[in-house]
C-alpha cells in the first residue's frame, strides 16, 4: 500500500466549512412557516402546582399554542429509564411537563409556541402558575440527614440506590495493617457547558406521515427509536438528525429531555415546523449536570508504601431524577483502583435524590472523583512514609506483564473491569522527564527563598473506554469514484469525517478526502447508539474498518473477473485497481463500482471509458452471481467489543500559589496519554488539550453554587467561570501506545481522558506548594478564596 493514513496528522476535512461560517447547527436551520417555542420553567426547587392559567398567554397575538401537562394526553409518560440496575430500587424519571409537583428550579411546566421567540417569551410572562412551596433538599448533607424532607414523597430517605461491590478481603487486611487512615473527600457539581446550547427543530409532513427532528444531541438513533414509540409511528417514518453539534461533553446524550418530546408534539399538533432553542440561562438550570459526591475512605498500607486495601463508602447526588440510572457512581467505584494493584477493595455507594438539576454523565463521568480519591491516597502514603510521590505510585503499579488485569468489579456496561493493556511506569517515566521532576525540589527551594510558593503535582488514571453494545458502518463506492461512509454515531467536534475517512481510505487505496462521511442521521444509517463514553472512534471506527475491508475484498473479486486474474493478485493503490505488476492496465474505483452493478444503463465519464476498455465480458449465468451477494461495491458491518478497553494517562503540573490571595497560576503542564493506536495524533492531542482545560475549570474555576432554596446563584457566564485563554496554560502532550488487543485496529477511547486527573494533580500540587503550612486538600473544586480559607484553617490549629 502506497500510504498509510492511519496514524497521520491529517488536516480536518470539516474545517473549511466551519471556518467560513457554513456550519449547520440546529438553530441555523429555518424552515418555511416555522414557529418558535419557549419553555416556562419552575422558579421553585420543590413545590406543589396548585393551578395553571394559560388563557392570557394564548390570547396574546402571535401565540399559536400553549401546552401544559394536562394537554399532553398519552404523551404524558415519564421518560424511559435508560439503564436499569438491580440496585436502583427507586428510579424516577421526569414527565415532559410537570403535572402536580416540581422537583428542581428549571423543570419544564409549560411550552409555548408563537410566531417568534420574542413573542413566545412574552407569553411565558402571562402564564399564571400558583405554587405551594415544599421543603427543599439542596445538598447531599441535607438529603442524608435523619428525618430529612423527601424529594419524592414515596422514596424513603431520598435513597434511589444502594450498591456494594467487594473484591478480596479488606476487613482482614485492615485488622492487621501497620498503617491505616480514614478521610472524608468531596467533589462538588459542575456542568458541561457546550458553547452551543441544546436545540430541537421538528417538522411534521402530513402527506407522508413523516416526522423529522433536527436535534443537538449525541444520540439521534435512540431518540428516533423513542419518538417512534411515543408517537406510534413506524421507525422509518421518524427521522432524527444531529446536524453540526456545538459540543456535547455528555450532557447531550441524555434522553429524553422534555423539549425533545414537546417540540415534535407541537409540530404534529400544529402541522407546522416548530423550533426550540435553549438559551444559556436554561442550559444552567435544565441541562443535566454532574460530579457531586462525598467519600468516606479508609486505606491500609505497609512500610514500603504498598497500598493493601481500600474501603470506600460514598454518597452520590443524582439530582431530582435518575434518567441515566446509576452509571456515574458505578464508574466511580470501578475507576477508583486506577493503575494500582489493589487486591482488597470494598466499595459501597448510596445514590441520593436532591431538588437539583438531574445528573447524567459529563466528560469524565464519575472518574475525576475516583481519581481524586485514589491519588490523594497515594500522596498521603508518600507523606506518611516520607517517600517521593512518584516512587509510591511506582511501587503500586500493575506491571506490563500482568495484563489482562481484572479489577474484580462489574463495569458500567455489565462486563468485567478488565484492563486489556497498559504500561504505567513508562508513562510516569516520560512525565518525569518532560516535567523535569527530579530537578523540581531545587527550583522549589529557589522560589521559596524569593517568597514564591511553587508546587508540583501528578495524577494518574485508568479509564474504561470503547464500551458496547455495538456500532455499525456502511461503505459504498459510487460510480464517480467517491466513497460514501456512514455510521450511527455523531460528531460534536471529534473530527470523525477526517479520522473515519483515514480508516476507510487505507483499505481502498484512496486519499481520505475522497471519503465522504454522513453520520448522526437515522435515515442514513439505521442502527447505533451514539457518541459518548469515549467509544465512537473505537467502536464505530472498527465497524467502518470491517466494512471497508469487505468492500476491498469485493473490489478484488470484481476486478479479478474483469482482468481474468486471481483476486489475491489485485491491488488497490492511489485510486486505481490493477493486477499486481501490471499497473499500466487499470480501472478507477468508480469504474469498478459501475462494473459491480450489472445494469444496462450506466451514465457518466467512468461508464463511457469502461465501454472503450477491452475487458472480459460477463460470465455465463445470473448477472449478479451468488458469491457477489449484493450489487455494487458496498458493505455494512458491525463491531461489538467484548468489553471495555482501558486507556490510561498521567498528567503533571507545576503551579505557583500566592498565599496572600489564594490565587494559583500554572507554570508548566504535561500530559502523557495512552489511548492505544492513534488514528490522528493532531486530533487526539486536541482532545487532550480541551479535556485539560475543562479539568482546570473543574478544579479551580467552575463550581455550581446552589443556595438553601435550591437556586443556582451563579447561573450565568458572569458568575460561573469557564476558564479562558488567559487561565489555561500551554500543555505538552506525549503518547504511550499500548495497543488494545480487543479491537481490530488496537484503538482505545480518547475523548474524556484529558479532564480526568486534573483535580487530583491540582490538589497534589497545592499541597506541595503550601507544604510549609501542612495543608491537605480534600475537596474539589477550589477557588482563590477557598485556598486562602484552607490556609487560614491550618494556621489557626
Amino acid at each position, binding site marked *: 500500500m502506497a500510504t498509510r493514513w492511519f496514524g497521520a496528522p491529517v*488536516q*480536518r476535512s*470539516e*474545517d*473549511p466549512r*466551519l*471556518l*467560513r*461560517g*457554513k*456550519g449547520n*447547527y440546529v*438553530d*441555523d436551520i*429555518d424552515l418555511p412557516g416555522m414557529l418558535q417555542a419557549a419553555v416556562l420553567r419552575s422558579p421553585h426547587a420543590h413545590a406543589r402546582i396548585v393551578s395553571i392559567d394559560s388563557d392570557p398567554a394564548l390570547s*396574546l*397575538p402571535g401565540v399559536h399554542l400553549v401546552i401544559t401537562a394536562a394537554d399532553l394526553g398519552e404523551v404524558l409518560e415519564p421518560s424511559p429509564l435508560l439503564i436499569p440496575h438491580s440496585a436502583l430500587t427507586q428510579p424516577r424519571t421526569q414527565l415532559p411537563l410537570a403535572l402536580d409537583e416540581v422537583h428542581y428550579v428549571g423543570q419544564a411546566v409549560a411550552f409555548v409556541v408563537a410566531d417568534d421567540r*420574542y413573542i413566545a417569551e*412574552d407569553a411565558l*410572562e*402571562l402564564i399564571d402558575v400558583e405554587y405551594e412551596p415544599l421543603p427543599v433538599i439542596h445538598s447531599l448533607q441535607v438529603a442524608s440527614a435523619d428525618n430529612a424532607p423527601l424529594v419524592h414523597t414515596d422514596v424513603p430517605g431520598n435513597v434511589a440506590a444502594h450498591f456494594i461491590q467487594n473484591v478480596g478481603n479488606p476487613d482482614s487486611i485492615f485488622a492487621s495493617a501497620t498503617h491505616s487512615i480514614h478521610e472524608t473527600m468531596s467533589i462538588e457539581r459542575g456542568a458541561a*457547558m*457546550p*458553547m*452551543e*446550547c441544546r436545540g430541537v427543530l421538528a417538522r411534521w409532513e402530513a402527506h407522508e406521515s413523516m416526522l423529522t427532528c433536527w436535534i443537538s444531541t449525541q444520540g439521534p438513533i435512540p431518540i428516533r427509536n423513542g419518538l417512534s414509540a411515543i408517537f406510534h409511528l413506524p421507525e422509518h417514518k421518524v427521522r432524527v438528525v444531529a446536524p*453540526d*453539534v*456545538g*459540543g456535547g*461533553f455528555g450532557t447531550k446524550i441524555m434522553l429524553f429531555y422534555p423539549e425533545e418530546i414537546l417540540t415534535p408534539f407541537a409540530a404534529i399538533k400544529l402541522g407546522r415546523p416548530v423550533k426550540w432553542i435553549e*438559551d*444559556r440561562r436554561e442550559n444552567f438550570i435544565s441541562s443535566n449536570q454532574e460530579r457531586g459526591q462525598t467519600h468516606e475512605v479508609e486505606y491500609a498500607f505497609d512500610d514500603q508504601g504498598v497500598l493493601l486495601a481500600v474501603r470506600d463508602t460514598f454518597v452520590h447526588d443524582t439530582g431530582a431524577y435518575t434518567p441515566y440510572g446509576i452509571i456515574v457512581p458505578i464508574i466511580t467505584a470501578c475507576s477508583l483502583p486506577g493503575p494500582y494493584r489493589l487486591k482488597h477493595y470494598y466499595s459501597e455507594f448510596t445514590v441520593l435524590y436532591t431538588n437539583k438539576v438531574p445528573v447524567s454523565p459529563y466528560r469524565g463521568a464519575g472518574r475525576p472523583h475516583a481519581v481524586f480519591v485514589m491519588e490523594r491516597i497515594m500522596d498521603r502514603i508518600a507523606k506518611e512514609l516520607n517517600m517521593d510521590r512518584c516512587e509510591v505510585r511506582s511501587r503500586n503499579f500493575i506491571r506490563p506483564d500482568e495484563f489482562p488485569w481484572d479489577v474484580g468489579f462489574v463495569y458500567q456496561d455489565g462486563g468485567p473491569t478488565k484492563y486489556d493493556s497498559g504500561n504505567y511506569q513508562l508513562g510516569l517515566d516520560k512525565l518525569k522527564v518532560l516535567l523535569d521532576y527530579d530537578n523540581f525540589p531545587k527550583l522549589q527551594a529557589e522560589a521559596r527563598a524569593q517568597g514564591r510558593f511553587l508546587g508540583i503535582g501528578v495524577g494518574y488514571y485508568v479509564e474504561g473506554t470503547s464500551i458496547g453494545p455495538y456500532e455499525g458502518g456502511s461503505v459504498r463506492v459510487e460510480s464517480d469514484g467517491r466513497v460514501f461512509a456512514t455510521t450511527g454515531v455523531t460528531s*460534536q*467536534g*471529534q*473530527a470523525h469525517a477526517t479520522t473515519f475517512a483515514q480508516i476507510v481510505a487505507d483499505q481502498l487505496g484512496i486519499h481520505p478526502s475522497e471519503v465522504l462521511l454522513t453520520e448522526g442521521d437515522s435515515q442514513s444509517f439505521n442502527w447505533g447508539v451514539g457518541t459518548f463514553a469515549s467509544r465512537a472512534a473505537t467502536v464505530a471506527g472498527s465497524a467502518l474498518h470491517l466494512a471497508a475491508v469487505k468492500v476491498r475484498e469485493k473490489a478484488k473479486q470484481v476486478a479479478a473477473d474483469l482482468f481474468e486474474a486471481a483476486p489475491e493478485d489485485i491491488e488497490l493503490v492511489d485510486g486505481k485497481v490493477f493486477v499486481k505488476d501490471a499497473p499500466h492496465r487499470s480501472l478507477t474505483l468508480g469504474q469498478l463500482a459501475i462494473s459491480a452493478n450489472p445494469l444496462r444503463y450506466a451514465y457518466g465519464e467512468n461508464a463511457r471509458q469502461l465501454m472503450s476498455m477491452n475487458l472480459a465480458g460477463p460470465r455465463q449465468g445470473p448477472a449478479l452471481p451468488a458469491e457477489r451477494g449484493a450489487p455494487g461495491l458496498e458493505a455494512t458491518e458491525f463491531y461489538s467489543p467484548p468489553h471495555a478497553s482501558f486507556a490510561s494517562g498521567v498528567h503533571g503540573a507545576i503551579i505557583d500559589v500566592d498565599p496572600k490571595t489564594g490565587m494559583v497560576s500554572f507554570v508548566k503542564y504535561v500530559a502523557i496519554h495512552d489511548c492505544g493506536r492513534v488514528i490522528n495524533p*493532531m*486530533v487526539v*492531542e*486536541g*482532545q*487532550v*488539550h*480541551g*479535556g485539560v*482545560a*475543562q479539568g482546570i475549570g473543574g478544579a479551580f474555576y467552575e463550581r455550581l453554587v446552589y443556595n438553601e432554596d435550591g437556586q443556582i446563584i451563579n447561573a*450565568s*457566564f*458572569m458568575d460561573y467561570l*469557564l476558564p*479562558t*485563554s*488567559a*487561565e*489555561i496554560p*500551554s*500543555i505538552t502532550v506525549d503518547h504511550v501506545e499500548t495497543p488494545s488487543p480487543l479491537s481490530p485496529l488496537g484503538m482505545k477511547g480518547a475523548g474524556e481522558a*484529558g479532564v480526568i486527573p486534573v483535580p487530583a494533580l491540582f490538589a497534589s500540587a497545592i499541597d506541595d506548594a503550601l507544604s510549609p503550612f501542612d495543608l491537605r486538600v480534600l475537596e474539589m473544586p477550589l477557588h482563590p478564596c477557598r485556598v486562602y480559607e484552607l490556609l487560614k484553617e491550618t494556621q489557626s490549629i
Partner: protein
Amino acid sequence: MQEQDETPTFSEVNLISVTVNGHLYERQVSVRMLLSDFLRHVLHLTGTHVGCEHGVCGCCTVLLNGEAVRSCLMLAVQSDGMALTTIEGMAGTNSELHPIQQAFQEKHGLQCGFCTPGIIMSVHAMLHENPNPTEEEIRHELSGNLCRCTGYQNIVEAVKLAAERLHASHMEVE
C-alpha cells in the same frame, strides 16, 4: 395582575439600512430585535453564533465599522447606517480561506466549530490593532472569547501563524 394596556407587544418596527459584508440591506425590523437575531434569522447569515446572549462567550462577535462587537448585546436598529463584517465576509468571493482561517485549519484551532466564527472575528480585530502580538498579548486578547473544546492552545498557535504570515506577506488586516 397586569393591566390590559400594558401587555407587551413590541409591535413597533423601524426601517434600517445596514451594509453587511459589502452588501446594503434595507429591512423593517422590530425595535427589540437583537443584532445577532437580525443577522441570523433575517439576513440568514448564520455563521454568527449565539452562545450566551449575555455578552460573555463571544460567539456572536462581528465587526462593526471595523471594531469587534458582540452582536447579542446590540439591537438591530442601533446598527442603522453602519457597516458590518461577519464570518461570511472573511474569505471573500474566491475559494481560498483568509490567512487567519487557513491558520486555524493548519493548527487545528477548532473542534466543534461553534465558537470559531466569533474567535476569527476577534482575531481579525486583534491583528489589525497589533499585527505582531506576543503569546501573552494573544492570550489576553482571546480571553474575551470562550472555547470549550480546544483548551485554547491551538487557537493561540493559529493566531501566531496567521500573524507571521500576514506580516511576511505585508498584508494588512483590513
